[in-house]
C-alpha cells in the first residue's frame, strides 16, 4: 500500500482525503502549521499528527500538498529535497519565478511532481477531449468556457480573507480561470498571447471577474469567463469547442439526470432536488488521485506535466497583467513584474 502524507488540512485536503479513502493507500499522517487542524484531520481520517514536515516526508511514498497557494513553494522544495514524490494543488504557485524554481527543483532531484488540475479529470471535460482526439469535430479551433461562482468563503472568515487578498490568492484568474486556461491548452495547444479585462484591479469588495481572450500558436482562439461575481450560491460552468468539422457544447445547467419535486410541509409550494451522480471511480478528484498513483507506480507521464502547470500559471499571470495594463501580453516574452 502506498503511504500518503497530507500537508494542509483545508477544504481541498478533505476532498482529497475522501478520494484517498477508496484507493489502496495508507494515510500515514497530517502536517499543518495549525496543529489543532492536523489533529482534527487525524481524528476524521486516521493517520498521525506530524509536527515536523521533514519527518512526514521521510515516512511516506507520496505527499499531497493542499496548502494555500502562497504556501506551495516551501512544501514542494522540501519534498524535492527529501526525494519524496508529490501531488501539489493548483495553482502551482502565486508567482512565476516561484513556479519555475519549483519545477526546476523537482527536475533536478528527479522527483515526480503531479499538479492537481482536476478539470482534466472531470468526466464531461475528459469526454470532450477524447471526442476531439477521436476527430469528432476536426481540428479544435475555438474554445469558450465559463467557470463562475460567487465570492468564495463568504461568511467564513479565514477563506474569505485569503481569497480577498489577491496578493496571496491571485484573485479569480489565478484561482479559477487557471482551470480553463489549463484545459484550453490541453485541447488547443500552446498559448501565444492573452488579452483580458475584468475587476481584479477595480477595488470592488468581494467581487472579481475576468473575460479572457487567448490566441493559440496554431491560430486558434479561446474565451474564458471566470467569475467571483455571481449572486451568492450561484455556480455556473460551460464548455464549447468548435472545430473545422463540428462543435462540442456542454452546460452545467443542462438537465440533470435525476430531478425530484417534493411537496413542502406547510407551504402550498414545492421544492426541487437535482442530482447528477457518478460512479465512485468517475469522481474527478478520486480519478485524479488514482491517475497520479498509477503514474507513481509505473513511471508513466502524468496527464498534467510540471510544464503544463508552469504554463498555466504563466498564462494566468499574463492575463492578470493584461487586466492591469489594458494591453495584450505575449506569453513567450512575459515576465511577471516584481511584486
Amino acid at each position, binding site marked *: 500500500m502506498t503511504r500518503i502524507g497530507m500537508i494542509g488540512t483545508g477544504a481541498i485536503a478533505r476532498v482529497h482525503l475522501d478520494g484517498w479513502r477508496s484507493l489502496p493507500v495508507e494515510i500515514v499522517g497530517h502536517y499543518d502549521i495549525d496543529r489543532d487542524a492536523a489533529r482534527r484531520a487525524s481524528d476524521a481520517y486516521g493517520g498521525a499528527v506530524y509536527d515536523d514536515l521533514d519527518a512526514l516526508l521521510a515516512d511516506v511514498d507520496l505527499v499531497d500538498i493542499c496548502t494555500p497557494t502562497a504556501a506551495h513553494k516551501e512544501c514542494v522544495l522540501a519534498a524535492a529535497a527529501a526525494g519524496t514524490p508529490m501531488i501539489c494543488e493548483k495553482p502551482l504557485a502565486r508567482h512565476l519565478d516561484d513556479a519555475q524554481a519549483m519545477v526546476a527543483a523537482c527536475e533536478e532531484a528527479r522527483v515526480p511532481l503531479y499538479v492537481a488540475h482536476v478539470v482534466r479529470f472531470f468526466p464531461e471535460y475528459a469526454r470532450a477531449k477524447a471526442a476531439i482526439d477521436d476527430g469528432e*469535430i476536426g481540428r479544435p479551433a475555438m474554445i469558450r468556457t465559463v467557470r463562475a461562482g460567487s465570492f468564495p468563503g463568504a461568511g467564513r472568515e479565514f477563506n474569505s480573507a485569503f481569497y480577498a487578498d489577491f496578493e496571496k490568492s491571485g484573485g479569480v484568474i489565478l484561482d479559477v480561470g487557471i482551470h480553463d486556461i489549463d484545459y484550453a491548452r490541453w485541447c488547443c495547444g500552446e498559448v501565444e498571447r492573452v*488579452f483580458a*479585462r475584468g475587476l481584479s484591479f477595480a477595488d470592488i469588495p468581494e*467581487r472579481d471577474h475576468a*473575460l479572457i481572450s487567448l490566441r493559440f500558436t496554431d491560430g486558434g*482562439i479561446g474565451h474564458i469567463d471566470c467569475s467571483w*461575481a455571481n449572486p451568492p450560491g450561484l455556480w455556473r460552468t460551460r464548455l464549447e469547442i468548435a472545430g473545422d*468539422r463540428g*462543435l462540442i457544447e456542454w452546460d452545467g445547467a443542462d438537465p440533470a439526470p435525476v430531478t425530484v419535486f417534493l411537496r413542502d410541509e406547510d407551504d402550498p409550494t414545492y421544492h426541487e432536488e437535482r442530482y447528477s451522480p457518478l460512479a465512485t471511480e468517475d469522481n474527478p478528484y478520486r480519478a485524479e488521485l488514482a491517475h497520479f498513483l498509477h503514474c507513481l507506480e509505473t513511471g508513466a507521464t502524468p496527464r498534467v506535466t510540471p510544464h503544463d502547470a508552469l504554463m498555466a500559471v504563466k498564462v494566468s499571470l499574463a492575463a492578470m497583467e493584461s487586466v492591469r495594463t489594458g494591453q*495584450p501580453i505575449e506569453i513567450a516574452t512575459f515576465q511577471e513584474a516584481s511584486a
Partner: protein
Amino acid sequence: MTQETIRIGMMSFAHMHAASYAAHLRQMDGVELVGVWDADATRGQAMADRFGTAFFADNETLLAEGLDGVVICSENVHHREHVEWAAGRTRAILCEKPIATTREDAQAMIDVCAATETRLQIAFPVRFSPSVQRLKAIIEAGKLGRLFSAKCTNHGSMPGGWFIDRELSGGGAVIDHTVHVIDLLRWMLGAEVTEVYAEVGDSLLHPGLGIDDAGLLSFRMDNGLYGTLDTSWSRPASYPTWGDVKLEILGEEGIAMVDAFAQHLRVSSDAAGKTRWLYWGGDMDRGLVQDFVAMIREDRAPSITGEDGLAALAVALAAYRSAVQGEVVGVEME
C-alpha cells in the same frame, strides 16, 4: 377611418432577409408591395412571382412609381449606391445591416438622406425581440445595480455566397456579426464603444475559405463597462440551428442572461437528416417592418438611424484594425 396605403418597393434580394421582410409586408394591412428590382433579374423575377408583385428590370422605373418606402437588401458594398438612387425618390429607406463597408460610404448615405429629407432606417431587427426588450427593461429598472460587463455572442453558420466575397461583403464573420450586438448594447445602455481589441481568424473554422470566419472582440464602453463579443461562424452544418444571439450582463446586484432564440422546438426530421431547432418566439423581422411602415405613416423619425448603423459599423472596422495592428484601438467615429 381608411388609412393611407403605404407603397413599398424592394431593391435586391441578395440578402436573404429580404424574403422575410417581403413576406411580412405582404401580410400587413394598408401596405402595397409595388414591385421588385434586382441586379440579378432571374432572382428578382422569381421573388416578384413568389410575393405576387411585379419585377422591374430597371431600378428607375420602380423608383418612378412614387414609392413611400424602399427596402434595400443588396450586397453590403452596394448599399451606398442603392441608397443614393432611392434618396429623394421615396419618403423612407430600410437598409439591411451593416449599413455599408466603410465609414465614408455610411456617412455619404446619411448625408444624402438628410439632404433629400429621406428617412433612413437600418435593419437591426433584434431590437424587436421581446426577450431583448425585457432585458432592456430589467437594466433600465436598475435591477442589476452598477453594471460591470457584457459577455455576448452572435454565432452563425458559414453563409457562403457573396458573404465570403470580400469585394461584395467588406469582410466575413466580424463585419457580419459585430453590428447586431453592438447596436443592442448601444441602445440598451445608452453608451458608446470607445476601444476594441480583437482576435480575428481567417479560414480558421473553414480551411481555404479566404475570409475571416472567427472573431472575438474585447471592448470597453464610455460608461466604464467592458465586454466581449464572439462573432464567429462556428456553427457547423450539422448544428440544429443557424446560430445565436446571447447577451449576459453582469452587475453588482446580479446577472441577466438573454438567449434571443431560446424559444424553439427541437424537431428531429429524417427528411432534414438532423435535429433542428424551430423558433416559435415572436418574429423580430415582423416588428422591424411594422416599425418601418409606422414611421412612414406617422411621418416620424426612424427608431434606428443611419448614425446607429455607422456607430455599429465603426466597431466592426475597429476590430479589423485591432487584429492587423495587434493592439487595442480606439473606435473612430469621425
